[in-house]
């Protein structure tokens, strides 16, 4: 009887996962889709706890409910309280938790299955993949929140990395075959997989983190699927494989948006040798613009395009930029936002942020559609974006971002770039746009400067 109830619960759960993911592909149904999947998950979890044939001591039940209770409160509070700008790193952190969970399952199940090659295969695979996903996600988390912001490159990094990967795989294969009854060896395998996860992620530049998180996300899915294989558990299989395959596809789609192959992201890290190529001196000078000049310029424009970047998110300037948009529209200026697919730290990051401040959906124009419009634009205001408007992507084959499609802001009549300082962008490369004769720099924190700009505009009628 118990068996039928769990089977039914898993069937319902699996269906909700598929439906939920499908619904998340459309802005209208996305939120409900997430809810549907969450309900399916709860059903599956409770069916697993209550409908089984084991005799379980109250201590174990107490611990299970304690862990679920504690995890729910912690997860809920963290997710609710985090600022919108911090969401990407939070996703990475939660992904790491899932990976660690899969790794722990491997550590615990190993001893029950010594000598059973068929069971050890998914156990060891889950352990290795889960561990890599865990340590990799933690590094991605640290990089995104700025604790670790320089890509680390050792000499012959790729060779070292691949050697470690092969070593870990060979070690894993040997453990499966020889199945030594020795905890120390198992923990050594665990540790070496953790080290590989760190080595895998550490050389990758911050701008590529979304791709890495997406990839690690599909790794965790795979680790969960191996768990499903081990227990012949259908919901772990569906959930894990769905995420594994969907996550892989999503990773490739993101790479395509940056016009770089995945191998280039993983092996050819940003911030390498090419960066040094050409720093300022012979590039001409940089012009400043004052807030009042910009206010006048915008007030008498017909069309203004705003290019939001991560700096906008950091400065929490999404509300004031909406205010700027409203006031300009009242003066009869047409205002649009140019959305680069990888602006911010994750694809769609800027859309989420601007939607938060009630910017209307139809004002957010995707790159392909907005690029032809720059020629007829009076002012382009670049707020905290850098790499997505860097002309080096088009005309400097030695640049690390060469080939990435960018927003053609240099076609506009006037360009104004708001930045806190002259520091290079997240990819760590210089930007020729700043030396363009049509460009002026508006230095300062986005929120402060834009607030002044709005105030200035209000005084003009």
């Amino acid at each position: 009887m118990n068996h039928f109830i769990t089977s039914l619960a898993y069937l319902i759960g699996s269906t909700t996962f598929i439906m939920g993911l499908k619904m998340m592909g459309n802005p209208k149904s996305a939120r409900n889709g997430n809810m549907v999947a969450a309900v399916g998950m709860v059903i599956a979890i409770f069916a697993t706890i209550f409908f089984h044939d084991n005799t379980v001591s109250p201590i174990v039940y107490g611990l299970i409910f304690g862990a679920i209770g504690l995890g729910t409160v912690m997860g809920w509070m963290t997710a609710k309280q985090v600022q919108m700008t911090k969401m990407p790193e939070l996703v990475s952190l939660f992904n790491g938790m899932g990976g660690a969970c899969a790794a722990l399952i491997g550590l615990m199940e190993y001893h029950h299955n010594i000598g059973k090659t068929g069971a050890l295969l998914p156990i060891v695979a889950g352990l290795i993949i889960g561990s890599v996903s865990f340590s990799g996600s933690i590094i991605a988390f640290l990089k995104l929140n700025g604790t670790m912001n320089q890509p680390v490159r050792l000499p012959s990094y790729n060779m070292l990395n691949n050697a470690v990967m092969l070593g870990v795989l060979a070690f894993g294969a040997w453990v499966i075959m020889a199945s030594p009854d020795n905890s120390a060896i198992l923990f050594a395998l665990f540790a070496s997989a953790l080290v590989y996860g760190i080595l895998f992620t550490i050389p990758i530049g911050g701008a590529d983190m979304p791709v890495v998180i997406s990839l690690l996300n599909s790794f965790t899915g795979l680790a969960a699927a191996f768990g499903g294989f081990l227990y012949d558990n259908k919901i772990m299989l569906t959930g894990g494989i769905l995420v594994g395959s969907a996550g892989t596809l999503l990773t490739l789609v993101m790479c395509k948006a940056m016009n770089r192959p995945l191998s280039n992201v993983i092996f050819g890290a940003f911030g390498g040798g090419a960066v040094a190529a050409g720093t300022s001196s012979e590039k001409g000078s940089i012009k400043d613009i004052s807030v009042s000049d910009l206010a006048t310029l915008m007030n008498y424009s017909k069309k203004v395009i705003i290019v939001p970047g991560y700096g906008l998110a950091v400065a929490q300037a999404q509300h004031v930029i909406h205010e700027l948009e409203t006031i300009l529209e009242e003066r009869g200026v047409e205002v649009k936002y140019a959305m680069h697919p990888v602006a911010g730290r994750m694809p769609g990051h800027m859309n989420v942020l601007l939607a938060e401040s009630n910017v209307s959906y139809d004002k957010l124009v995707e790159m392909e559609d907005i690029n032809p419009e720059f020629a007829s634009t009076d002012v382009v205001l670049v707020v905290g974006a850098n790499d997505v408007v860097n002309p080096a992507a088009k005309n400097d084959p030695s640049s690390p971002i060469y080939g990435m499609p960018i927003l053609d802001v240099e076609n506009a009549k006037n360009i104004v770039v708001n930045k806190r300082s002259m520091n290079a962008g997240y990819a760590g490369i210089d930007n020729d746009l700043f030396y363009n004769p049509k460009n002026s720099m508006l230095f300062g924190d986005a929120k402060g400067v834009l607030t002044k700009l709005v105030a200035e505009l209000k005084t003009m009628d």
Partner: protein
Amino acid sequence: MQQLFDFLALHEMTIYFVILSVFVGIEVIGGVPTVLHTPLMSGANAIHGVVIVGAILVMLNVDPTNYGALALGFLAVLLGTLNVVGGFVVTDRMLEMFKKK
């Protein structure tokens, strides 16, 4: 060789299941607008939290006098819960932004 055949025969349904699920996963994500990539990744992140089911299964089989295993199992369920709850709530917060005005 025989071992391989036995393995395939034993897991025939599972293998079908895996292959079909791979295609379902690809199919379901196809044609998603860029705007939704981040929430979708986050939603998928919550779904692989299903690994918690495995952690619970381990716990249900743990010998209640083996404190080391109890501690590891507790940690595994805790981490799995964080993945599930945190994942779904973050996704919901992102998608909340897309509500109609």
